[in-house]
């Protein structure tokens, strides 16, 4: 044995870091693929309601979001719930044109899958939501999702009401 043992082997060998770039690159690609750049500044505060019967949005790129909630900047915009379309506050009467415009942007073949996700705050009154729904019906955008966060159980849901 002593024939093969060299002086070097008595020291603690350095950890082989050759595979470190591979590992890091793997993580990097994972995050690159899953990342979505936050390109939207939220002008209204939205706390989503809870629900148990929720479904995932199938195609994010075919979905348009409408945010409804109390403006963050209450000094300029007041404390009444407002509608946010893309990066500005709009009126309910703008919703129809906005949704039609968004639908025009997507490929004609995939337009039947077009969907509108309403992200509304729990404290918004249904009057405003109903008006938005009417606008969506006028725009023939009939697939609608009420964005909600998952509730752990039905009891949890009743308590939050």
């Amino acid at each position: 044995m002593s024939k093969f043992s060299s002086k070097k082997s008595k020291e603690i060998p350095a950890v082989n870091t050759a595979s470190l770039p591979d590992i890091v690159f793997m993580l990097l690609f994972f995050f690159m693929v899953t990342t979505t750049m936050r390109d939207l500044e939220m002008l209204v505060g939205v706390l989503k309601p809870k629900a148990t019967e929720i479904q995932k949005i199938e195609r994010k790129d075919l979905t348009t979001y409408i945010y409804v909630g109390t403006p963050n900047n209450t000094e300029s915009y007041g404390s009444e719930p407002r509608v946010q379309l893309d990066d500005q506050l709009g009126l309910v009467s703008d919703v129809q044109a906005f949704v039609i415009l968004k639908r025009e942007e997507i490929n004609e073949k995939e337009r039947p899958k077009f969907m509108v996700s309403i992200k509304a705050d729990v404290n918004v009154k249904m009057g405003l939501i109903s008006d938005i729904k009417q606008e969506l019906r006028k725009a023939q955008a009939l697939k609608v999702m009420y964005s909600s966060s998952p509730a752990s159980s039905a009891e949890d849901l009743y308590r939050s009401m």
Partner: protein
Amino acid sequence: MARNKRATPEINAGSMADIAFLLLIFFLVTTTMDVDKGLAVRLPPWSEEPQDESNDIREKNIFVVLVNANNDLLVEDDYLSIDQLRSAAKDFIDNNGDGTCEVCRGLQLPSSSDNPKKAILSMQNDRGTNYSTYVTVRNELIAAYSELRQDLALRRFGIDYTDLSDESRKEINAFYPQIISEAEPVKIGG
């Protein structure tokens, strides 16, 4: 050894990890992984004239859920709390009054729905109802259908509804089609 020295030297990959880490941290910070989820509904098409009140639907086939501006429920002329709504809706859908539904296990009351294909859950809210209440009520109505479908899936195929193939799922959906209608909201209070 001497021959090896003449070959092209290896590129120093020591800094590769640093570069990759830098990119990794950038994407870690900018990433948002909120998968958007929610209750999927289908709105009725828009029509200028008010909905024709067709009377060919018998009143006993409609399960009326009213929500007022104080977020109280009135279900079939009874005050119910939200945790009672799901089972009430299930009893109504599964009632099978005319006996044509061979998979139903309802009580066959003459005053409740004929069969699940005719049963309609109708929901109407006030303009002052809270959005969270609306979503919860809507959630309960959808849940009533999902629970009935799940029961049937277990009885018929012995597996969960979510694990079924598309054809089997269609078969079950045919027994329990999801019919939820929404009336225009009223403005009483709020």
